[in-house]
């Protein structure tokens, strides 16, 4: 009985280790795909990204459904050739789907964050759902930017000054 339990634990451990290795293999595989894709995107081919999309892919935050709609969106991207680095976060597996998060940091300071849900689609891993968030350099999470503050202050100041002048004239107004 003792040896049976040890053998069983050994098999289970092997399965766990094997599964862990599978996840890391998948992660490596996806990383390679993404890196190859990004090279093409930054060479002026943003639609290269569509190669990894499933036909029924969705982009919930922009309410885009289907590969065609997202392909049309990718065609509108105007990404100039620029140097960049990619920061990958660990791949997370939930049942038979994989969640992949990575951030592309351009030397201009522009940052694009990708969160993708990969799943098996016709014996190949494809993206079923994605979220892309782009942020400009030094973007504030809250609070007005300097330029807008200056423009708005100037505009509001002028409006208030003119209003007070109009009120002054209204007080002095003796009728038509």
């Amino acid at each position, binding site marked *: 009985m003792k040896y049976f339990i040890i053998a069983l634990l050994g098999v289970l451990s092997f399965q766990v280790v094997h599964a862990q290795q599978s996840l890391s293999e998948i992660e490596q595989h996806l990383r390679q795909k993404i890196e190859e894709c990004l090279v093409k995107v930054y060479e002026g081919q943003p639609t290269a990204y569509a190669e990894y999309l499933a036909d029924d892919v969705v982009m919930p935050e922009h309410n885009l459904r289907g590969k065609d709609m997202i392909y049309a969106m990718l065609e509108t991207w105007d990404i100039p050739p620029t140097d960049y680095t990619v920061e990958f976060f660990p791949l997370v597996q939930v049942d038979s789907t994989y969640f992949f998060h990575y951030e592309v940091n351009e030397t201009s300071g522009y940052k694009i964050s990708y969160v993708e849900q990969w799943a098996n689609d016709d014996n190949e891993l494809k993206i079923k759902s994605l979220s892309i968030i782009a942020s400009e350099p030094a973007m504030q999470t809250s609070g007005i930017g300097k330029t807008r503050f200056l423009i708005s202050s100037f505009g509001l100041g002028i409006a208030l000054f003119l209003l007070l002048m109009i009120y002054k004239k209204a007080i002095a107004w003796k009728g*038509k």
Partner: protein
Amino acid sequence: MERKVKLSIPKWQWDLGRLKKDPEKQFFLLTAFWFTLVVLGGFSDSFYFKESLSPTRSFIKVHGVVYSIWTLFYFIQCLMVASKNVQWHMFIGNLTLLLLILLFLTGYYTILKSAELRANDVKGGTLIEIAIGVSLAFLAIAKRKNDYQHKRLMLAAMTALTSAAVQRLARTYWNFDDNFWLIAGLYFAPLVALVIFDQLYFKKIRYFSLILLALLIFNYFANPHDFIFSTSFGKSLIEILQRLFLWV
């Protein structure tokens, strides 16, 4: 006896004499600048100077264009009156009837369609706001023979119809968190300024602008749409609107 109907383009002139003398003309021209800049600033990130990765849907573009033309019309109309181009003001006024209908249709379609696409509840408050704005504008046109009421009704209509711009000005252009009193202040600023102006200009209490301000204050703070659309009548109304506009 035959009647000869002569269709002609109104005579154009540029006489700023009245504008320089009459503070009422100056006040309404200032409100025209205010509404134009509020709309431009409020919708700069999401419409006019949009830099998002996702394309703007067609119905939103149509909605944006129609409302932009309406704002521009308000500006032009104030300018026409200020520069003594009353004939042009009346000529352009004929076009605003059609524009108001488009305003209503595109506004309602945008609200209902956006709710459908996002699987959210329909924004009843915005539906009411548009209904109030369009109604006030129609009333303003009906009262066009009465300068005093016509101008004030139009200003109240503009206030109601630019509520979305005011919210976006505070939240996205200025990037402030949801600041209730800032948004309320910006929203009521033109009407409050009008109430103060009327008391100073006419040297006695003028109730018309006060009533218009009270109407919008009631709608803003009492939120009658919460009550209306929670009733079975309100829910049926939403369903009817969805069937009419979305053909569902």
